[in-house]
């Protein structure tokens, strides 16, 4: 039995596997399958300042080795999250990362400030959403906007702050450096890649929103590449994700530089995916005589 525990920004995780934001709700449904205490942590559905209804359906499209989603930021708002969901989550003996988002730096900061007075373990700031003050371009697509929103949230909270990066950029390392400089304690990546599918008979996009975020095994090599590049560019820890479906995928992402790994779409294929991945990681480490998973972080030997 290998030691699977990891420590990120002073927060102790019993293992490095965390269901990703948006696929796991607030844990209530998956708790019907297995106890949440088996997970390293849980990243909750993105929460905004006030309730949002999200996009019109269809919101889901299957793609080769992946899927598109255009759920949008449907959520009940931060006050409801803190009153109704967070207290329950905090009893589950697992690390809770509250994923937050907003349309302005002020909204993100306000949400973070409200979480600051709770017992949530970490805040994960999603910067892939549109900045309404800058014509709707995502915060995460420009260094200046990424820096501004990170700095605003940094001022609002002393909780460990993880900034979740968008892969829809020319240079993810520049964005990572910008958020590190603005006070991020860690980064998580990657969010979904923008994609589109069309029903060729009706000539209508499958998603009512026309475009949506691509996730699943199809994006795994992009995730490995980006985690590796960011690991070489910043000095803060990385939480890696994007298409992880097996323990070996998780090991690969950690060798590329991730200290922990989130699991998204794989939960849909198999609700037990996160717990199976934990078991498979342990098997790999045992088979290769590695006593602690933290020893493999960033150990890739590039040519």
């Amino acid at each position: 039995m290998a030691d699977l525990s990891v420590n990120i920004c002073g927060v102790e995780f019993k293992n490095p596997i965390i269901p990703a934001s948006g696929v796991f709700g607030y844990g209530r449904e998956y708790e019907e399958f297995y106890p949440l205490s088996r997970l390293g942590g849980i990243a909750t559905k993105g929460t905004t300042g006030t309730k949002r209804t999200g996009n019109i359906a269809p919101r889901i499209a299957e793609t080769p080795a992946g899927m598109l989603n255009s759920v949008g930021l449907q959520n009940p708002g931060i006050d409801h999250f803190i009153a109704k969901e967070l207290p329950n989550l905090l009893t589950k003996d697992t690390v809770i990362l509250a994923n937050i988002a907003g349309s302005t730096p002020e909204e993100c900061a306000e949400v973070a400030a409200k979480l600051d007075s709770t017992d949530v373990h970490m805040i994960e700031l999603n910067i892939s959403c549109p900045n309404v003050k800058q014509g709707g371009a995502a915060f995460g697509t420009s260094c200046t906007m990424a820096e501004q929103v990170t700095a605003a949230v940094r001022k609002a909270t002393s909780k460990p702050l993880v900034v979740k990066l968008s892969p829809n950029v020319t240079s993810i390392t520049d964005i990572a450096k910008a958020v590190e400089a603005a006070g991020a304690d860690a980064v998580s990546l990657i969010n979904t890649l923008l994609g589109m599918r069309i029903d060729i008979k009706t000539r209508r996009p499958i998603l009512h929103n026309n475009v949506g975020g691509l996730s699943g095994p199809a994006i795994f090599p992009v995730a490995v590449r980006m985690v590796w590049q960011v690991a070489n560019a910043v000095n803060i820890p990385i939480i890696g994700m994007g298409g992880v479906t097996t323990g070996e995928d998780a090991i690969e992402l950690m060798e590329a530089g991730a200290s922990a790994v989130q699991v998204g779409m794989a939960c849909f294929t198999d609700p037990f995916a996160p717990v199976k991945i934990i078991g498979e990681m342990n098997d790999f480490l045992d088979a290769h005589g590695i006593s602690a998973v933290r020893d493999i972080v960033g150990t890739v030997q590039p040519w």
Partner: protein
Amino acid sequence: MKYTQGCYPIVEKKLIAQDTVSITLRCPEVAAAAQPGQFVHILPKGYGLRRPISIAGIDPEAGTLRLVFAIRGKGTKELAGLNEGEYMDMIAPLGHGFTLKNDAQHVVLVGGGIGVPPMLPLAKFYGTKATAISGFRSFQQVILQEDLEALGAQTICCTEDGTAGAVKGFVTTPLEQLLSEGVDAVYACGPMPMLRAVADVCMRTGTYCEVSLEERMACGVGACLGCACRTRDEKGEEQFVHVCKNGPVFKAEEVQW
């Protein structure tokens, strides 16, 4: 509610119409818990997303579940290729089913095309108190009429081109006639235009009506918010609910048509 996920053996497989298969699975724990109107979420080998399929038969004594589905795309084609003795990876039972009324004297089950299968468990519950109106495009698609009759339902089969059944045209024509004689509840599943027409007739005549909706799904359990549908609560306020968890069955008056 506890969800179960498992791989269950196929004990019977039949082609019941062109591109339409009936599959019976041995899964005692699901058969013991399943309710009319609920669905299962099945993973075709090699795909990332599961396929939602309505429960078309529940036999707790035999420990079996029946599914009837049309081959639509790649996933259902893969599933239809499985044979007796092979296994299906399934999460079940899911969703919120039909409301069963013990005191009803006469109910109408309206199924359109591949919306007919979920009417079977209702026909089993209501026996001779049910009239089943089924609508199909043409004679090649007609399914499950003998199954409905065997459970005690009176059947009215409609085809758009008049190539089979007593009625040429849509299900709403015989439905309107039955409603004028007084009906306690109408249950419907089928294509959206049909559901809208059925809901409309029921609301006009003040008849209690429940409809089973379809939406593209990812998790199937209510976690990902992928299968949103717009409804109105009692106060008339618009809200987004989830077909997989709050549905697939909704009261017709709640749905934003």
